[in-house]
């Protein structure tokens, strides 16, 4: 281990900026690095890179798991265009994402603002984070019970208020909003903590200046807090939205796609195609489309909301 190099003050700077060093120096710690990277690289190649390539290939094949995949060109994609279940799945997923992310983001910003103004208590923050640490499956089942048509506590409460009980999971119009709401309950605390962390990056002098200028609460929020929070909000939106598109667990243990396809979200439809019909090629093609959709959504958000630039500059 003779490769003692003098570190530049900035650790993140690239290694190769100095004039061409002798070979030994140029390779640096390559040998040691290879040993340290070996396990992670095996995992990365076998369970990330290889399946990504294989998934792309499978999307152009007919594959039932029983015999080798048969290349069939763009057939899967052609089939997808004419598959009304696929389009329904996309629409249902989109409906879910819009409700889930819309409600969750507004609530999270509200919660973060309220916490920011009222309390830094770690107990409060921990309490609102708690649902996020419990499995999706657990959360789904608890709400499945609480929202039960006959004996669920929520419908008991509605009846007590004089409202007719609602078949939250049994009626097509209610199923997606219900599932979206359940996941808002699970994620809003976590999202609020991300926004809360963002609020703390806004320097106090900006608020002081606003106060001196006589700006009221609302005006300060719309004109100062929200614009300065934008880079954080974009990151939060990208991350939560990518997660939201992948809704599966809640559907799988409650409605299983029903009633009448109203909750057959794209992830669930892919799962059904692959694991109950053994239609792996078609399922891979749909996963590919989902991949592309997610990439476009993230890029658009980052572009449209100019994530990198802060208004504070």
């Amino acid at each position, binding site marked *: 281990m003779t490769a003692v190099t003098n570190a530049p003050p900035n650790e993140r700077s690239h290694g190769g900026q100095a004039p061409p060093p002798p070979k030994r120096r140029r390779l640096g710690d390559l040998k040691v690095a290879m040993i340290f*990277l070996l396990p992670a690289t095996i995992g990365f190649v076998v*369970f990330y890179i290889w399946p990504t390539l294989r998934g792309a290939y499978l999307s152009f094949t007919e594959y039932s798991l029983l015999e080798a995949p048969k290349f069939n060109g763009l057939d899967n994609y052609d089939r997808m265009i004419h598959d009304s279940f696929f389009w329904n799945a996309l629409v249902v997923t989109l409906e879910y994402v819009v409700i889930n992310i819309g409600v969750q983001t507004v609530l999270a910003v509200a919660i973060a603002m309220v916490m920011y103004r009222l309390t830094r208590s770690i107990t409060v923050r921990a309490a609102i984070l708690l649902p996020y640490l419990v499995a999706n499956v657990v959360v789904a089942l608890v709400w499945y019970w609480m929202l039960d048509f006959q004996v669920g506590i929520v419908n008991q409460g509605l009846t007590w208020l004089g409202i007719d009980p609602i078949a939250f999971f049994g009626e097509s119009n209610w199923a997606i909003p219900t599932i979206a709401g359940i996941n808002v309950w699970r994620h809003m605390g976590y999202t609020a903590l991300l926004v809360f962390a963002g609020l703390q990056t806004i320097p106090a002098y900006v608020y002081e200046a606003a106060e001196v200028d006589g700006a009221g609460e609302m005006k300060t929020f719309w004109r100062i807090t929200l614009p300065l929070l934008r880079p954080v909000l974009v990151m939060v939106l990208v991350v939560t939205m990518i997660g939201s598109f992948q809704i599966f667990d809640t559907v799988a243990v409650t409605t299983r796609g029903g009633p009448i396809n109203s909750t057959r979200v794209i992830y669930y439809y892919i799962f059904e195609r692959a694991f109950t019909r053994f239609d792996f090629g078609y399922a891979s093609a749909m996963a590919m489309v989902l991949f592309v959709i997610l990439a476009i959504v993230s890029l658009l958000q980052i572009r449209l909301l100019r994530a990198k630039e802060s208004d504070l500059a």
Partner: protein
Amino acid sequence: MRKQLSVGRILAWAFLIILLLLTLFPFYWMLRTALSNNTALAGNPSSLLPVETTLGAFKRVLGLSTIEEAQAQGGSGASVNFWLYLRNSVVVATITTVCQVFFSAMAAYAFARLRWPGRDKVFAVFLAALMVPPIFTTLPNFVLIKNLGLLNSFAGIILPGAFMTPFAIFFLRQFFLSISRELEEAAMIDGAGHPRIFFGMIIPLSAAPIATLAILTYINSWNDYFWPLLVGQQENVRVLTVALGVFRSQTPQGGPDWAGLMAATLIAALPMIILFLAFAKRITNSIGFSGIK
């Protein structure tokens, strides 16, 4: 002006308190239902206290009561053994966490503390994997695990997550970068090699972030449903989340065993709640920008 402000504060407090109640109530309701007698539940759906308080539901899902006892309290009588599923979850989450964190730490060391050509490019490639949605790699991974004959084995459930995740490497690299290089150089002059620096210096100095990452990894692995559902259906390797799904689908449509179901969800949730309470401060504070996941 001052009065208006205080009205606003009262409203804000009210909002926060309602929110906390909404957040915590389902946990209470889980407990209340789990401690109830299922046959009596339907008659008293809005009682805030357990109905005919009993540990029957827990005994039932832990496989400790006879079929007759279970059916008398509204259970389905099907044999369920959440002890076994609990053990399976512990096995899967523990091995996954230990391997994933350790191997990711090794990789993070190579990316943060060693100098070699192409380092930052390789790191970027690792990070890019964060962009690929899990379902896309899950289908081929299932084929791979199936071809390896590892369906319904712990190895099959654990392997894909055992080596690394891009997030874990990214997370640890950040902390490793912040350790001063002088310390490392002093150790090297004393003749310490890389293994000694890694185990004797970097890991102890990063104990706090490593612990945070390990806790988060454990929770995620414990809560995972999709992958174990695909590769670990059989009872001997079935983890809690999968078992809950099965239990829910076995429950009769007419008179579901709600008490049993809630007892089972509590068994699945409680270890994570305890883990969280023990490390609440550490976990809560870790949710910031490095915590985006």
